[in-house]
């Protein structure tokens, strides 16, 4: 039994943060109903790559859709029409949690805003995720991940310094802003659920902004700015506060080394046969090493460049020096530790096909994550959900379908 068994989630969100949060709740055992617009469905069904079948033709859903929609049932309802809005209200009345990421104010036009739904279901935990939040001068603006990477200061601290070759702000290669907001959404939802169940009996509204979440996530680097008033330099792969903490060129590739304390630094010097360094007062403690980084690092670079990656890694591992290779994804999924932890799994996806999935990393001893459903086809569960939750019969479903309020698609 997973930890959120019995919890019902109505997911009106599209593309990223919201679906990602709802997938986390599904992994933990919640029953997640994903509402999509008939025809096109979630925009993310049209982003990313598709697998190719044996005949070389593309098949199945896109990689982006599949990465954030497992464990859900898809119901296709047209929310722009009153009959569709009534269906969504019916589902919300029977839910514990609602997640939406419409632009601030949009759902009020449909009678699906927090005030309207709390009147029908006071126990509802209603989570709004938007780019800039429900309030403030930018509340009406649309926004996507790179905007929040750039506005939060993240891009200003990622990449090489301006004067260096290839210098300039860089975007993090995955949608870290979306994912970060997704984590905060899940945290807030679970906290609100606990408050409802243990204290108040009432739901509440959560107003989560991607920009806020990304600013908060930068944490100690932002704090360095707040304490010192100095913009942290863009240092490429080098840490401003810990040394050595960077990538190094070996004889045949790169390795990263992250030395967190003085014992590890001594062990590293031992492996590199640099016996004088740990006793040198300039390098004895981390603050001293960070201060004398420009003198220390070249000494380490020269010593490291003599070794091939594999041999150095083995020696550092044996000595307890934190290090790792810079992996591409082939190497990631081939890594013995990743394989041991079963971070790659395979799910049946209908028609005899299986799809790969990256596992949920939270390992519970008592209520393990269960993967019960592959990402759904658009409207795959429309009839099932409306029959089960709202008690509609075949004639009513047929009327709704004919009026194009809903769309039902057979399982693939």
């Amino acid at each position: 039994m997973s930890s959120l068994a019995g919890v019902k989630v109505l997911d009106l969100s599209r593309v990223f943060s919201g679906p990602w949060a709802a997938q986390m709740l599904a992994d933990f055992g919640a029953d997640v109903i994903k509402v999509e617009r008939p025809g096109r469905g979630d925009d993310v069904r049209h982003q990313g790559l598709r697998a190719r079948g044996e005949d070389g033709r593309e098949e199945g859903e896109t990689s982006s859709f599949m990465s954030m929609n497992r464990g859900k049932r898809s119901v296709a309802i047209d929310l722009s029409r009153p009959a569709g809005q009534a269906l969504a209200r019916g589902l919300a009345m029977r839910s514990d949690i609602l997640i939406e990421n419409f632009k601030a104010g949009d759902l009020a036009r449909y009678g699906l805003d927090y005030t309207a739904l709390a009147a029908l279901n006071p126990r509802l935990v209603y989570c709004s995720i938007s780019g800039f939040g429900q309030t403030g001068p930018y509340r009406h603006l649309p926004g996507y991940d790179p905007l929040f990477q750039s506005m939060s200061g993240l891009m200003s601290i990622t990449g090489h310094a301006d004067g260096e070759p290839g210098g300039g702000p860089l975007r993090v290669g995955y949608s870290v802003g979306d994912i970060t907001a997704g984590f905060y959404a899940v945290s807030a939802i679970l906290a609100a659920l606990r408050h409802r169940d243990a204290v108040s009996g009432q739901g509440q509204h959560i107003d989560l902004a991607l920009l806020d979440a990304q600013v908060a996530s930068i944490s100690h680097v932002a704090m360095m700015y707040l304490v010192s008033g100095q913009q942290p330099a863009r240092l490429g792969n080098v840490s401003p506060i810990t040394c050595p903490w960077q990538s190094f060129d070996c004889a045949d590739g790169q390795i990263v080394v992250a030395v967190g304390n003085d014992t590890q630094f001594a062990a590293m010097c031992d492996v590199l046969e640099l016996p004088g360094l740990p006793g040198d007062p300039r390098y004895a403690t981390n603050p001293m090493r960070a201060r004398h980084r420009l003198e220390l690092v070249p000494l380490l670079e020269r010593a490291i460049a003599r070794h091939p990656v594999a041999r150095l890694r083995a020696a550092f591992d044996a000595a307890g020096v934190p290090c790792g290779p810079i992996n591409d994804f082939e190497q990631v999924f081939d890594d013995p530790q990743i394989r041991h932890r079963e971070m790659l799994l395979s799910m049946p996806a209908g028609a005899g096909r299986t799809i790969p999935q990256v596992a949920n990393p939270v390992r519970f001893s008592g209520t393990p994550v269960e993967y019960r459903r592959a990402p759904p086809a658009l409207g795959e569960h429309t009839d099932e959900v409306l029959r089960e939750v709202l008690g509609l019969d075949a004639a009513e479903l047929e009327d709704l379908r004919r009026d194009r309020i809903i769309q039902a698609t057979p399982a693939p």
Partner: protein
Amino acid sequence: MTAPLHGIRVLDLSRVFSGPFATQMLADLGADVIKVERPGLGDEVRQQGSPLRDAAGRPLAWTSSFLAMNRGKRSITIDLAAPEGQAMVRELARQSDVFIENFKTGDLARHGLDYASLRALNPRLIYCSITGFGQDGPRSRQPGYDLVFQAMSGIMGMTGEADGPPQRVGYSVSDITAAYHAVIGILSALHARQSGLCEGQHIDIALLDCQLAAASHVAMGYLLSGVQPARIGTRSHFMVPYQAFDCADQPLVVMCGNDEQFRRLAAALDLPGLADDPRYAANLQRMRHQDTLVPMLEDALRAHPRAHWLEALDRAGVPCAPIQDFRQAFDDPQVRHRGMVTHLPFAPTGTLPLVANPLRLSETPVEYRRPPPALGEHTEEICAQLLQVPVERLRALREQGIL
């Protein structure tokens, strides 16, 4: 209003980053967090980052990194190597709901503070272990820090310019990502306990697992196609346009999340017909033909300064943003409106600026009840309140260096 985690006691044996960041979130949500530190130096993070300065500019014994992840906690110093110290921690764990630690796998078993030992005392305890590689597997006993997991998870491999080397994300994203999973795991385990599904349990969080899972749709693109995602600077693997462009003066990030936004962008840039061209009308086509499309957009955007485009594209409803440094970010009208910097009373300097928690709960707003604690600031308070240690004994423990 009572906070969501009111009445939940968290015993925090973790150091440096993931664990402290997770317990700060639990403290923000109202939990009573007791931070156990070693006598003398305390958490290593007290030695990392920029020093806080007093009004005269003199450095104080508080660092930015410690201040960033330790508000809302009480600090008690206990020597875990001493049997009497271990007994005190066991007694605190008996009275706690949640226990967080990030020792190397197996280390706490030597002190009788592993999950099996503590469960025997308190079956309702939720025990969360955060490590680099997890509690099992060939590398489970290796130490590791953020940079190692950025490298091994593949995210450095996909960050950087096309012709440049892999790049690190500029903050400790792997630590933070693991912290979020720890919080989420703990909250859902509390839910399972509350609803009677089980008593306490063990949660095993690995930084490497979490960072890989967070790579999400990019990792999935690889799994479906077998093609390693290229390093592409500020661009996206999945959408066009979606990147930084040079305006006449400064760069601007511009992107279209759907075809309607692209239509509006083409109109705002005065490029009629572009959105009707079958090569560019839909995102998957734009991906395919970006080599011809992007130069046209570059030329158009270069014609005017950034302020012009920010205003014009905002008006057209096309997502765009300046690349801000921290001064600009914290000065941004929206960031200010949302109160993302909060100030707490703080004895050494009068007041302390902190980055706010971004969770906005309508009924149970986050409350900041305590600034980050001095080392051992609450040792006596906790000893008296929870351990009933008499004053003479307290003095003796202090003299022996156990507290």
